[in-house]
């Protein structure tokens, strides 16, 4: 059949393939409602261009709980090699992902990789797509993903992936539209249908239109379902038997398997194929569309459906279904109403899902197993609750994780298994503290130790000590964190439990470092080395995060910047998104304090747009945004900080509340509202003093004093604030300058003599700190200072493309015609890093090539200013 009204979309895909063939890998997102013809469109494209490329194709299936990495099984079968061996041999998912990438990078011809129906994808497949999306740019690959736009709501898990890919320059979006009246008229041709009526009734949905046209031809059915059933009604009894079996089996169906379920299929299958409701798909057969399968399935009488599911279950078991068939087996068992089979298969499916990191699917399978577990012995049931709680905690469903963990504790207690009871009590602390229920977490952590101490020394006890240390660290209680952490390290070392040693070292190191004591760094470095040896990427990422943010919290910005950069690179390489987001949020805040506002603004703006940002990352990025807007005098500061406060209040911890309150106090001050400034600064001042947090306590005292309150300033407060509160503006300004905080430096100078104030004004103007500059000008006029400098001169076209200093250097090298290798040598970075910078420069200039970038640089006069900007830093 001709493909109507898709020429432009086909052309877009062909262009993308051309790019991919030239080693500029592309991603194409093909979206549209059910029945719009996504599969037909892709098939058409492959028929026209498949010969110029290797084609790999995988499908996501419409199961209640999808098969983890389902599409990768299809792809592995076609690709063969290491990937096929790995997937059959249950290789870890990182190995599978890189095996696929290796396959894609090799080969003489470009590859077209298609994953269909991504709206049904499991979590691991979405991770796979994200992994590919981030690495496709330098491979000869066109990655085509299709999905139903109308089924991907704002909270659908595919949203994160789409957000991730949308930001990439390699992405092409293709939205398939409905047929116009002209197309419907062409399809109707000589048939006895009124094109106008048909177009109105079907809204131009191609599947609906063709279904109507191929049904008997008496009138237009009201719904797609009616149209499908009208077509099915043309079948005889043999055809209907086969159709019902096929509807229960679903997906692409092996004819032999179909015969095993439906009995004799010779006549019936032929009927179904000739009526066109089922089509051949390679060696298999499949419904012409999932919509047709759904319509047929809904019509099968319940007893018959159970029977067919039972036969499908037996047939698939007899065929020796492997890891990739477990989810399907579970669905047949559930359809057959076989509780003991569901229980057994769901647990196996859950374990298989955990193995490839499909935690949402694992959670769903454990929940299903628990629903069928009433007759299980208590110890086995308790183990199911534990496993379910683990998965719930990983997918951030903390409330249910807590409930399931408590159920496990109760069962073990009933069995008088003290070791298991203690282990689960310690594990219970984690979902509790992460949902901000800190007091309850403390309590269960204490009980865990109490229970386990009564037994001989165990790994469980070492871990319970470690949990306690971690909780105390989060509360910034250094002595207790160190005490419990050392106990954990000693015991775990004796029992050779390296993972617990590494985790305990991280807790101790963070607790020490966050108070500004460098001795914590040694613990953290040891933890990183140990975790790397164990291959625990997530722990390495977390340790880097703790180091970087501890420095940030202590206003040690050059060190914070260096470790955060390292941590951001590490976590993006290892796809550790949560840690990556949190560190980028902190880097934005560091940039605000460093006066590098343009960079802060870019980081923060990109991050707040992320659809699935964890609360702690969102709090920190909103603080950065709030401070930035307040200091620039831009709108939206209050909105950002209101949201941050709501989120921080849920945690109830100093670590979150103090940065938010401090930023709010600053905003109130800049808006001239002293009463509000005091209220904000007072809110958690006592808590900051209790924790002896030098910087938070210093800043709160500073705002309260500025707003006219009398407030004591402990000697341990951070030095620059202490100096400023003593009235020693000169030394305070010097201290801020040494820390690399120009805005704070200017704020201290503004309290000085006329010369200092003039200097402050220059800094404020240079930063673009309009409110502080305006207030200072007014103050200077009021005190009769003469010759107050005028406002900042209008920015000239110094750097109209927003290039960073590094990118300006790269641009100068490009204009000089240097290769990446030569640029790398000159700037002391790897050619790969140069490559990234060059892409960024081209993107910002909107230039298609290095030559065009060089021309633009000369035309726009970007080159002479290069030196000037470089020196200004």
């Amino acid at each position, binding site marked *: 059949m001709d493909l109507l009204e898709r020429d432009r979309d086909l052309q877009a895909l062909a262009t993308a393939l051309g790019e991919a063939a030239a080693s500029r890998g592309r991603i194409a997102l093909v979206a549209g409602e059910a029945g719009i013809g996504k599969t037909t469109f892709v098939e058409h494209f492959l028929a026209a261009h498949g010969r110029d490329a290797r084609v790999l194709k995988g499908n996501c299936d419409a199961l209640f709980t999808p098969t983890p990495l389902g599409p990768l099984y299809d792809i592995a079968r076609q690709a063969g090699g290491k990937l096929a061996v790995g997937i059959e041999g249950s290789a870890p998912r990182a190995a599978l992902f890189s095996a696929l990438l290796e396959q894609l990078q090799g080969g003489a011809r470009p590859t077209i990789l298609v994953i269909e129906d991504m709206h049904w994808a499991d979590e691991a497949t979405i991770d796979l797509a994200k992994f590919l999306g981030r690495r496709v740019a330098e491979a000869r690959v066109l990655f085509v993903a299709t999905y139903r736009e109308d089924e991907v709501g704002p909270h659908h898990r595919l949203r994160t992936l789409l957000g991730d890919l949308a930001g990439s320059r390699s992405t092409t979006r293709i939205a398939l539209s409905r047929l116009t009246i002209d197309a419907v008229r062409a399809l109707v041709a000589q048939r006895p249908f009124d094109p106008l009526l048909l177009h109105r009734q079907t809204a131009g949905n191609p599947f609906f239109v063709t279904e109507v046209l191929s049904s008997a031809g008496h009138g237009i059915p009201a719904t797609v379902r009616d149209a499908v059933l009208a077509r099915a009604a043309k079948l005889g009894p043999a055809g209907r038997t086969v159709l019902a079996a096929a509807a229960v089996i679903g997906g692409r169906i092996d004819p032999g398997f179909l015969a095993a379920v439906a009995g004799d299929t010779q006549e019936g299958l032929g009927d179904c194929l000739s009526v066109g409701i089922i089509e051949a798909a390679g060696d298999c057969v499949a419904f012409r569309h999932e919509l047709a399968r759904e319509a047929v399935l809904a019509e099968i009488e319940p007893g018959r459906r159970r029977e067919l599911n039972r036969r499908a279950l037996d047939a698939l078991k007899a065929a020796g279904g492997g890891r990739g068939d477990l989810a399907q087996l579970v669905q047949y068992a559930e359809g057959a109403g076989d509780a003991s089979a569901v229980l057994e298969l769901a647990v196996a499916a859950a374990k298989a899902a955990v193995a490839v990191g499909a935690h949402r699917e694992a959670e769903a399978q454990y929940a299903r197993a628990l629903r069928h577990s009433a007759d299980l012995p208590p110890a086995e049931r308790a183990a199911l609750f534990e496993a379910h709680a683990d998965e719930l905690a990983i997918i951030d469903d903390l409330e249910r994780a807590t409930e399931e963990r408590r159920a496990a504790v109760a069962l073990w207690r009933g069995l008088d298994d003290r070791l298991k009871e203690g282990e689960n009590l310690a594990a219970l602390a984690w979902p509790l503290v992460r949902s901000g229920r800190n007091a309850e977490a403390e309590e269960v952590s204490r009980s865990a130790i109490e229970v386990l101490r009564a037994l001989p020394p165990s790994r469980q006890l070492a871990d319970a000590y470690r949990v306690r240390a971690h909780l105390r660290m989060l509360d910034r209680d250094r002595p207790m964190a160190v005490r419990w952490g050392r106990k954990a390290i000693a015991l775990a070392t004796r029992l050779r439990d390296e993972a617990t040693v590494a985790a305990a070292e991280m807790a101790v190191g963070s607790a020490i470092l966050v108070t500004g004591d460098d001795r914590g760094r040694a613990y953290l470095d040891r933890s990183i080395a140990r975790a790397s040896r164990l291959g625990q990427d997530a722990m390495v990422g977390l340790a880097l995060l703790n180091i970087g943010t501890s420095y940030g919290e202590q206003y040690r910005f050059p060190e914070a910047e260096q470790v955060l950069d390292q941590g951001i690179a590490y976590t993006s390489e290892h796809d550790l998104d949560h840690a990556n987001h949190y560190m980028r949020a902190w880097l934005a805040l560091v940039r605000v304090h460093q006066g590098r506002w343009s960079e802060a*603004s870019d980081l923060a703006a990109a991050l707040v747009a992320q659809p699935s940002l964890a609360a702690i990352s969102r709090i920190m990025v909103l603080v950065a945004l709030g401070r930035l807007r307040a200091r620039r005098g*831009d709108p939206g500061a209050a909105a950002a900080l209101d949201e941050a406060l709501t989120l921080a209040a849920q945690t109830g911890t100093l670590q979150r509340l103090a940065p938010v309150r401090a930023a709010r106090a600053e905003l109130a001050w800049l808006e001239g509202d002293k009463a509000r400034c005091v209220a904000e600064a007072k809110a958690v001042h006592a808590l900051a003093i209790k924790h002896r947090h030098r910087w938070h306590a210093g800043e709160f005292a500073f705002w309260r004093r500025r707003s006219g309150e009398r407030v004591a300033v402990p000697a341990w407060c951070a030095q620059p604030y202490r100096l400023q509160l003593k009235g020693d503006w000169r030394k305070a300004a010097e201290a801020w300058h040494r820390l690399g905080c120009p805005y704070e430096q200017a704020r201290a100078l503004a309290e000085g003599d006329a010369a200092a104030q003039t200097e402050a004004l220059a800094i404020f103007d240079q930063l673009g700190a309009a409110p502080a500059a305006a207030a200072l000008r007014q103050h200077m006029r009021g005190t009769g200072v003469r010759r107050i400098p005028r406002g900042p001169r209008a920015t000239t076209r110094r750097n109209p493309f*927003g290039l960073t200093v590094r990118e300006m250097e790269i641009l100068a090298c490009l204009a000089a015609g240097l290769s990446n290798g030569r640029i790398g040598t000159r700037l002391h970075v790897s050619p790969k890093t140069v490559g990234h910078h060059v892409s960024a420069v081209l993107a910002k200039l909107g230039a298609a090539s290095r030559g065009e970038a060089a021309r633009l640089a000369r035309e726009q006069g970007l080159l002479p200013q290069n030196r000037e900007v470089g020196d200004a830093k």
Partner: protein
Amino acid sequence: MPRYMIERTFPDGLGLTPNQQGNQAATSVIANNAQQGVTWVHSYVTPDKKHTFCVYDGPSPEAIRKVAERNGLPVDRITEVRVLDPYFHM
């Protein structure tokens, strides 16, 4: 999408001329804006051409500043605004 009023100062006067060069400048501003999801609605300019008041639609003040930087345009102040139509009340 929020609407913003952006005040700008041009000490030497705004150089936008109603000719080929002026058109090119305006086109390049519009292209830069589009990359950040920002739309330039229209502007008012004082008779001496030293001050402009520009109405923009954009996702955030950060996006407004970003395009100003790319376009080489100064920013004195950004204010979030809503339309108030006098005839609506008549």
